[in-house]
């Protein structure tokens, strides 16, 4: 049991992200209402952000903003001269996933904005946000 719990906890974020992502994916494919699809899209994208941010976590590490009080690291990385002692990379969170996710958040917001605009336009044209009703109306006036 303990082994299983360890296994579960060690990768807890990854399990959760998969479940969240699948909820989002299901909503995007199966939901009939366009706005619900978009809510699914948000969950889906946020799950990916959770995944990426989880990659960069280091246990007991600080945020990736250096204050000058970092734990120094004895080894040498480069041959050039340095004024400051090297920082122990274990004590600072990995900054790359954060940078990537800043970009992904922005992309997510932009996609959502465009999607909402398209959904509003669909509503203006067909007076409905339910996919089956819209498709029925499209079938009725097929030659537009």
């Amino acid at each position, binding site marked *: 049991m303990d082994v299983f719990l360890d296994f579960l906890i060690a990768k807890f974020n990854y399990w959760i992200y998969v479940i969240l*992502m699948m909820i989002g*994916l299901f909503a*995007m494919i199966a939901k009939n209402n*366009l706005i619900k*699809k978009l809510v699914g*899209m948000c969950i*889906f*994208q946020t799950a*990916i952000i959770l*995944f*990426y941010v989880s*990659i960069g976590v280091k246990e007991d590490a600080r945020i990736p903003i250096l204050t000058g009080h970092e734990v120094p690291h004895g080894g040498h*990385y480069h041959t050039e001269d340095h004024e400051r002692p090297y920082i122990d990379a274990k004590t600072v969170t990995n900054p*790359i*996933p954060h940078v*990537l996710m800043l*970009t*992904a958040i922005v*992309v997510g917001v*932009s*996609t959502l904005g*465009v*999607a909402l*605009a*398209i*959904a509003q*336009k*669909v509503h203006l*044209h*067909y007076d409905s946000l339910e996919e089956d009703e*819209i498709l029925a109306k*499209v079938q009725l006036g097929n030659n*537009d």
Partner: protein
Amino acid sequence: MTEQFPILIIIAPLFGAILIALLGFRHQSLCLPTVLGSLAISCAAAVGTFLKVLEQGTVLYNLSGWERVTTPRGLFSVSIEYRVDAISGLVLVAIAAVGLLNAIYSKVHVVTETPNKVPHYYILYLLLVAGLAGMTITNDAFNLYVLIEISSLSSYALIAIGSRRAVLASFNYLIMGTIGASFYLLGVGYLYIKTGTLNMTDIHAALVTLPKDSPSIQVALILILIGLWIKMAFFPLHGWLPNAYAYSPTATSTLMGPLVTKVMIYVMIRMMLSLFGAEYVFDHLQWTNIIVGLSVIAIVAGSLFALSRSDLRKMLTYLIVAEVGYMVGGAWLANSIGMTGAIYHILSDAMMTFTLFMVVGIIITRTGKTELTAFQGLFRKMPITMTGFTIAALSMIGLPPTCGFFSKYYLVRGGIEAGQWAYVGALLFSSLINAVIFFRLIEMAYFHGGKAYGEEITDKDHEHHHSRGRDLDAQPDETLEQVPWSMLAPMLMAAASLLAIGIFNRPIAGWINAALETLNLAQGG
């Protein structure tokens, strides 16, 4: 100066878009010259880059000026870089050329189809071209995602700007496209978690050292492939494409039809060869049979759907679906001839689709009809347009000396060498279907003298019934050919490029082959 060519391909359209945003709303007459100017610079830079690649091999361009950093384990890149080889050079030239020619061609359409929104349209148009070129040129897996989203967001808007049916198609495209791009992003995440880098060359170097049967790397490949397949409309995942292209404004479909799917195929090939590596993808995984099997289904289904459509643009969109099957199958044949064929077909299919979309655009604007019957008797009324159409049709069928013949030749040879007989059969079957479709259209255009132009548009009921040899002696209506040269010239240039790509097939295939060798996919390997 020449070392700045790669970046100019991307930033020329970007600055064009900025210029229109700053000035174009007040002075609308500035829009078109800006678009043409920036795309011409981009096109020239693409050609310059390509020539430079031929001269000195792969060109790297380091953004932000950070050199690769040395560690005990070798060099690694800390910033984003460009990597242009002969293959991406060719694709870049095709992107910039199609963008430029289409901007000339669609000058009238943009004003008539999207009045009041001309500056918006051109800004999005330029950024779409920049995004597609950026995807081709970048050597950074995450940067590729950002550029996929740039081109996707601008194409959602460029589609939705059209008719009311286009808005719904755009919504579906958005949902599908977001799933595709997110899968790609997730795949990159899995690669990052295993390798700790985002530069494609570095990822490849790290992957080689990792155990080959790691499930997360296989899942990363699956996720990336599915994501790209959605974006390129590979058969079971093609649902978004036909409506999105058929209902969008003319300028949008003539730009997206030739480019978006093809660039995605290039990206897939790039992922296979330079990110995962040919050895891993072909020798270790043994997925060739499955994916070539899928492509066979895609080719057959796409061709049959195309045969069953009576709407011109719908028919073309299903032909795109079939052609995507050609290229995916060719790329997965696991030999260099098939890969050469797939890459060669990226070029030739881009130009074929481009020519066909332009011809169809001209015909729809002039006759006002979207059905196949619009072709009746057109050869006499629009001889120039129909010349371009005939070349493109012969190329689609695959007759020499057009490029369609040579790409099919390489693909079929690759299929035979790999022993994929179903794939070879599907190619021949699809050529047969294309022959049926296009000879029917050519026959209609040449021999069905048809009625006078005025009758056809006033009498809508007659659209569906046409009888052989009716009114062969009717006076040809000269007014129909009054298509502006801004439309005809790009169409003819694209048609001429079909012949040129066909005639120069040996050097082109030679360049592609040389580039493939540096990617460890040697001749006969």
